[in-house]
């Protein structure tokens, strides 16, 4: 519980600093550098903790089922929000199917409508941020299932938190889950905007 409180406090302090400060270019560079070094370490830890090739193979099947769950859950969520709020179903579904990838969803939707772009960017950046706080809370009971809340971010930004609180197997599944979603999002979001 102490760790989660520290994470929530650090995130809030960081967000306030980012909101009120003009220059955050150095932070962007530091974020990328730290992210790569953490992913390097996760690679080392995953090998040290993985007992055999069979474990890796079974993780792949599990990751595929998790990907399907994330897509179904996010689509249902977007459709329900679209039905609840006045407006069309299409943008809400597209935003929800962004599944944490804000640098794609925001700019892509802003081509059609700047308000949808705002929703695509803000909702997905907050989904990533929320994963940092929610995953450690859920990891004790749902270490694998809770990976789905991170969406596409589970292959990079939120991977260190998943590795730390969920363990080596969860990290491996999260990586595959995030990778597959990253390949699917650029297909799913334009498809929703085109077809519906």
């Amino acid at each position, binding site marked *: 519980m102490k760790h989660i409180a*520290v*994470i929530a406090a*650090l*995130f*809030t302090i*960081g*967000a306030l*600093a*980012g*909101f*009120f*400060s003009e220059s*955050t270019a150095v*932070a962007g560079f530091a*974020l*990328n550098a*730290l*992210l*790569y*070094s*953490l992913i*390097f*370490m*996760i*690679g*080392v*830890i995953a*090998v*040290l903790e993985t007992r055999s090739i069979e474990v890796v193979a079974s993780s792949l099947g599990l990751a595929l089922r*998790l990907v399907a*769950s*994330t897509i179904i*859950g*996010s689509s*249902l*969520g977007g459709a329900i*929000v679209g039905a609840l*709020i006045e407006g069309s179903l299409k943008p809400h579904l597209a935003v*929800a199917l962004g599944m944490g990838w*804000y640098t794609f969803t925001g700019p892509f939707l802003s081509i059609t409508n*700047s308000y949808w772009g*705002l*929703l695509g*960017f*803000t*909702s997905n950046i*907050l*989904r990533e*941020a929320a994963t940092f706080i929610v995953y450690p809370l859920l990891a004790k009971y*749902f270490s694998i*299932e809770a990976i*789905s*809340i991170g969406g596409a971010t589970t*292959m*990079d*930004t939120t991977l*260190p*938190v998943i590795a*730390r609180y969920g363990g080596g197997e969860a990290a491996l599944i999260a990586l595959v889950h995030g990778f597959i979603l*990253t390949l699917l999002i650029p297909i799913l979001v334009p498809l929703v905007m085109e077809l519906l």
Partner: protein
Amino acid sequence: MAFKMLGVYLALALGVLTGFLLKRVCKDVDRLKKSLNRFLSINIYVLVALVGLSTGSGIREVLGVLGALFIHRAVVDVALLVAVPMALSLLTAIVVLRLGGRL
């Protein structure tokens, strides 16, 4: 994004190779794992603060473009679009994986 993804895979591949090397060379793997996990924990705190910084800056930029007029509607939309898909993704994963008999 393609450059970032390439960097991620490169870092991971180097990590995996180093892991295999350490598994062969290092005698006390448990102690090494413990040290790496401790280092990971500390770095996560730094990562969270930096992600917060970039989130705050991103939100400021978006608000700068659209102005305060849309704030109320946007807050409701964003709150729902974060919470509902996240909750339903988790729920679906629990149903699929637990009822599927894997866990």
